[in-house]
């Protein structure tokens, strides 16, 4: 098992391994999305309280979960790149950052779209939305630092330190925002957590969770391959591969 990871550390193996995996990931993501959206929009019953608008959670909740998950992936792969000096870990971390930011923006917008019918305003300083907004700032800081440093390895190491510092701060930020929210809002606002879900509502959500995870794997591998193309363009193995297969 360990040798498998070790082989992945070499850009050549990672490129070929990802190349073989991407078609499978692509189709399974598509299928899962179709099932999830079909279940979410057609099969799941209307919510007695929120009517049809609750169907937005099938996008909002998985996106919010993915935004946290991707930051963890970034911090861990950054840490691996920092400690074991693995170039591929830096590639994974830098490819994951824009995806995490995309998920965070998606979660923020769908959150406010979901909240609009309930509160009548586009934005409300609810604990979860505020933490999501601060998480977006952390992503933007990561991406800004990465593009600010020219040397690739220094940039990757610096961003790894930032991601590790960020990942230590995320729970602190989350709980201080929660605490701050209970102070000002009090319990009147309907809590944002998922209402007790009937199973027929829960299944689409779990499908969408899985779909988003596979989707993240797919786009991460695609971006990583492009990054390898960029970094390894002068290596002999890359030239042979391009000339011989042209793909």
């Amino acid at each position, binding site marked *: 098992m360990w040798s498998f990871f070790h082989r992945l550390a070499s850009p050549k193996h990672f490129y070929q391994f990802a190349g073989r995996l991407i078609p499978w990931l692509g189709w399974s993501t598509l299928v899962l999305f179709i099932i999830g959206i079909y279940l979410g929009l057609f099969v799941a019953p209307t919510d007695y309280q929120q009517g049809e608008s609750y169907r937005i959670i099938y996008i909002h909740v998985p996106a919010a979960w993915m935004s946290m998950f991707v930051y963890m992936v970034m911090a861990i792969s950054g840490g691996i790149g*920092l400690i074991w000096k693995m170039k591929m870990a830096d590639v994974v971390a830098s490819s994951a950052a824009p995806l995490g930011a995309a998920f965070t923006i998606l979660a923020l917008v769908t959150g406010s779209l979901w909240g609009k019918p309930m509160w009548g305003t586009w934005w409300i300083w609810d604990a979860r939305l505020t933490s999501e907004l*601060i998480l977006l*700032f*952390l992503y*933007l*800081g990561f991406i*800004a*630092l990465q593009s*600010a*440093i020219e*040397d690739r*390895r*220094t940039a990757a*190491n*610096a961003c790894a*330190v*930032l991601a*590790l*510092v*960020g990942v*230590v*701060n995320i729970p*602190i*930020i989350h709980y*201080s*925002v929660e*605490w*701050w929210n209970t*102070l000002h809002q009090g319990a009147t606002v309907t809590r944002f957590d998922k209402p007790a879900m009937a199973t027929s509502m829960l299944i689409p959500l779990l499908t969408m969770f899985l779909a988003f995870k596979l989707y993240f794997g797919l786009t991460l591998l695609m971006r990583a391959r492009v990054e390898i193309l960029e970094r390894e363009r002068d290596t002999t193995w890359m030239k042979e591969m391009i000339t011989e297969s042209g793909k």
Partner: protein
Amino acid sequence: MTNASLFNAFLTVLKRDLTLALRTRSEIANPLIFFIIVVSLFPLAVSPESGLLRTVAPGVIWVAALLSTMLSLDSIFRSDFEDGSLEQMLLSPHPMTVLVLGKVTAHWLVSGLPLILLSPLLGVLLFLPFEAMPALLATLALGTPVLSLIGAIGVALTVGLRRGGVLLSLLVLPLYIPVLIFASNAIATAAADLSIKGQLYFLAAMFALAVTLAPLATAAALRISLR
């Protein structure tokens, strides 16, 4: 490397940075003037009416303190990076975290402490009730070191860049949010004559966390930036 010589190295870095700061006095004064100006903008921009100012006073003072610390952060490593003494510190046999702690303490003495001494004056400017003054001083005393410690990480990450100023604020401000929340709320609660022990415990916990972990991250970031 007995810990006597380690503590001696810590003191030397602290004394060195303090003498350097005192010799370029404007570097100390500018953030403080900025602090006063920013606070006095709010009555002009919002309204001079005392009731309103009293409610926003804690938040305004703390945001101004945060921004003025941000301004003075760059001076921690910038000049040492340019003339090579940061390299000499990295190459000293003493652990870099201790030397970084010395530099951050010097920065706090030069930027955080004057803020604390100046803040009651600004409390008066914003009609902050008298009962809230001790809370203001206590939260600043616990909070400004955390601002310097976390800010040092951001500065260490951006010290190699030509214009890292704006990037520094983007990296560091999100990490300041927990301190801001607990500190400004503590002052508001104290103004309403309620006990603020809980908030102060949280601030103290963040201070303890920052004092132990931040120098490690700063030393690692410096080693990376000086590659």
